[in-house]
C-alpha cells in the first residue's frame, strides 16, 4: 500500500497491548468529557440545584412530619441525599452517550481503531468526577442546614468509597439504557422510571418499617436501601451490619453485568 509505505516514522501508530489501549483510549475520552464540564455550566448547575432543592424540601417541608426514631432528621436525610444524587448521575451518563449517538460521534469512534470500551469508560469516569463535585456541594449544603456527621477517617473513607462505587456502577446502567433506547429524551424519561422507585421505595428519606408489607420487602432488599443504610451508618458512626457487604456486592455485581453488556451493545449500536 503506497500511502502506508511512505509514512514517516513519527506518523505511525504506536504499538501497545489491547489492555493498554483500553486504558489509554478511555483516558483520552474521559479527558474529552471532563474539559466539557465547565464549558456546559448549565448541566452542572442543574445537576446541583435539584439535590439542593431536595435537601431543603425534606429538611424544612417534610422533615417535621417524618419520624426516624429519635435521630435528627437532617442527620438521617443526608445519606439518602448523597445516594440519590449519585444514583441519578446515571441519567447524566445516559444522556451524554445518547447525545454522542445522535451527533454521529459514536459512529466516528466506532470507525476508529480504538478500544471498544473506551467511549463508555471515558464517560463513566468523567461522570464519577462530576459526582464527586456534586456530592461536595451537597455536603456543604447539608452542613449549612444542620447536618452533623460523626464519622472518623475510616468512616468517611468507607462512605465516600461506596458512593464512588455506586456512581461508577450506576453510570454503566445508564450507559446500557442509552445504548438500548438511543434517543436523548427517552433516556431522560426512562431514567426517572427506573430510578424513582429505587430511591423513594428505600430508606433514603423515611424508615421502611412503616411501609406496607410488599413494599417493605422490596425496599429492605434493594441495593439503594442497603447502600443508604451503610453510608448513613458510616457517616453517623453507627455500627454497620451485613448491609455493608451486601451493598458492596450489589455494586460489584452491577459492574459485572452491565460493563460487558454495554460494551457488547456498543459494538453494534447504530446512530439512527
Amino acid at each position, binding site marked *: 500500500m503506497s500511502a*502506508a509505505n*511512505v509514512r514517516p516514522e513519527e506518523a505511525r501508530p504506536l504499538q501497545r497491548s489491547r489492555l493498554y*489501549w483500553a486504558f489509554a483510549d478511555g483516558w483520552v475520552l474521559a479527558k*474529552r468529557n471532563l*474539559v*466539557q464540564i465547565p464549558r456546559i455550566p448549565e448541566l452542572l448547575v442543574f445537576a446541583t440545584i435539584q439535590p439542593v432543592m431536595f435537601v431543603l424540601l425534606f429538611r424544612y417541608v417534610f422533615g417535621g412530619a417524618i419520624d426516624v426514631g429519635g435521630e435528627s432528621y437532617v442527620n438521617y436525610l443526608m445519606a439518602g441525599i448523597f445516594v440519590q444524587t449519585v444514583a441519578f448521575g446515571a441519567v447524566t451518563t445516559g444522556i451524554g452517550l445518547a447525545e454522542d449517538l445522535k*451527533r454521529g*460521534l459514536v*459512529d466516528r469512534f466506532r470507525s476508529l481503531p480504538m478500544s471498544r470500551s473506551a467511549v463508555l469508560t471515558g464517560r463513566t469516569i468523567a461522570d464519577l468526577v462530576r459526582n464527586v463535585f456534586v456530592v461536595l456541594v451537597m455536603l456543604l449544603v447539608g452542613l449549612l442546614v444542620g447536618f452533623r456527621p460523626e464519622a472518623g477517617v475510616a468512616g468517611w473513607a468507607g462512605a465516600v468509597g461506596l458512593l464512588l462505587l455506586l456512581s461508577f456502577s450506576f453510570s454503566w446502567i445508564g450507559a446500557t439504557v442509552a445504548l438500548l433506547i438511543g434517543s436523548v429524551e427517552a433516556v431522560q424519561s426512562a431514567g426517572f422510571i427506573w430510578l424513582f422507585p429505587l430511591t423513594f421505595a428505600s430508606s433514603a428519606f423515611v424508615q421502611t418499617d412503616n411501609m406496607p408489607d410488599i413494599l417493605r420487602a422490596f425496599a429492605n432488599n434493594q441495593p439503594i436501601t442497603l447502600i443508604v443504610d451503610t453510608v448513613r451508618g458510616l457517616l453517623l458512626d453507627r455500627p454497620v451490619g451485613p448491609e455493608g457487604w451486601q451493598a458492596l456486592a450489589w455494586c460489584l455485581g452491577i459492574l459485572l453485568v452491565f460493563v460487558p453488556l454495554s460494551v457488547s451493545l456498543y459494538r453494534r449500536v447504530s446512530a439512527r
Partner: protein
Amino acid sequence: MAEGRPAILAEGLEKSYGTTRALAGLDLAVEEGTVLGLLGPNGAGKTTAVRILTTLLAPDAGRAEVTGLDVVRQADELRSKIGLTGQYAAVDEYLTGRENLEMVGRLYHLSKKYSRKRADELLERFDLTGAGSRLVKTYSGGMRRRLDLAASLVYSPPILFLDEPTTGLDPRSRLAMWEIIGELVSGGTTLLLTTQYLDEADRLADRIAVVDTGRVIAEGTADELKAKVGGERLELVVSEDSDLRTAARALERHAKGGAGGGVRTDVDRRHVGATVEGGARLLVSVVRDLDAAGVQVDDLGLHRPTLDDVFLALTGRAAEPSEEGLPGHQEKETA
C-alpha cells in the same frame, strides 16, 4: 494485500431495516489507488453501503472486504486502515477544532506530539487556523463539514470513505475540497465517495457506480455513463404557446436518433428539450431553423447531462424525488 485484489470489494450486499430494503444485492469493486463515485438519489442505499464497508453495520447477506480484510470478521484490524467522513458532521461541539483533531489522532494511536502537529497542519489546510481554538459549536455548517473531513485525514489512511463530502459547502470550499481530494488520490489513496452530483463524480471519480433502490444499475467511467444518457441536452423555452409544436418539430430534426429521439415538451413551462450531439455548431443550425420557422425563443442552451438525465436514461424515471418514484415535473414525450 494480495496482488490484483480490489482494494474494496462488495458482493451481493443486502441490508433491510424492517420492511425497507436499503441494499438488495450490491456489488462493487474498487481498484487500489482509484476513486469510485457512488452516485444515486436519496434513499438509494449509498450511506448504508458506506456504513457496511466501514464496519459500522453488519450486512444481512453478502460479503465485503477492504484491503483484503473482511468487514465483519476482521473489523478490528480493518479500522486502522480506513478513514470515514459520514454524511452528517460528526464533530464534538464542545471541543475546539484543534482538540477534535488531536483527539482523533490519539484514537488512531498516534503520538501526542504528532497528533498535535497533524492537527495544526490540517487546520491550515482546511482554512480553519483562525477558528482552531474556538469551540466547534460556534462554527458554521461549512466549517464543521471541513473539520469533519479533516478528521478523516488525520491519519491519511490508505482507504478513505467520504459520504457526500461537499454537500453544504459553498463553491469556494467545494473547489478546495476537490483539490485536497485530488492530492490524496495522486498520493495513492483509494477513495470511495458518494455524491448526488454528476459533475462532482465526473471531476473526482475514475469510475462511477450508479445506485438505485439498493443495487448498482450501471457502472463505468463518466464518459461511458454520459454516452448512455446520450450526450448533451438542448433545452429551449419559446415565447408563445402556439410555437411549441413548431419548435418541437424543429428539434426533432436535430435530436440524436432522429424524430422522437428523446424530445420532450413541457406545456406549462413552454419548454422543449432534446438529446443532441454536435456542440456549438449544432446550436447555430438549430437557431437558424427556429428563426426560419418564425419561432420566438426566450431561452436556449446546451447543457451536459445531469444526474437526472443519467437517471432518466437508466431507469426511465427522474432521480428525485425517489419516494414517489415519479418525475417531479410534468414532461411527456411528443407525439
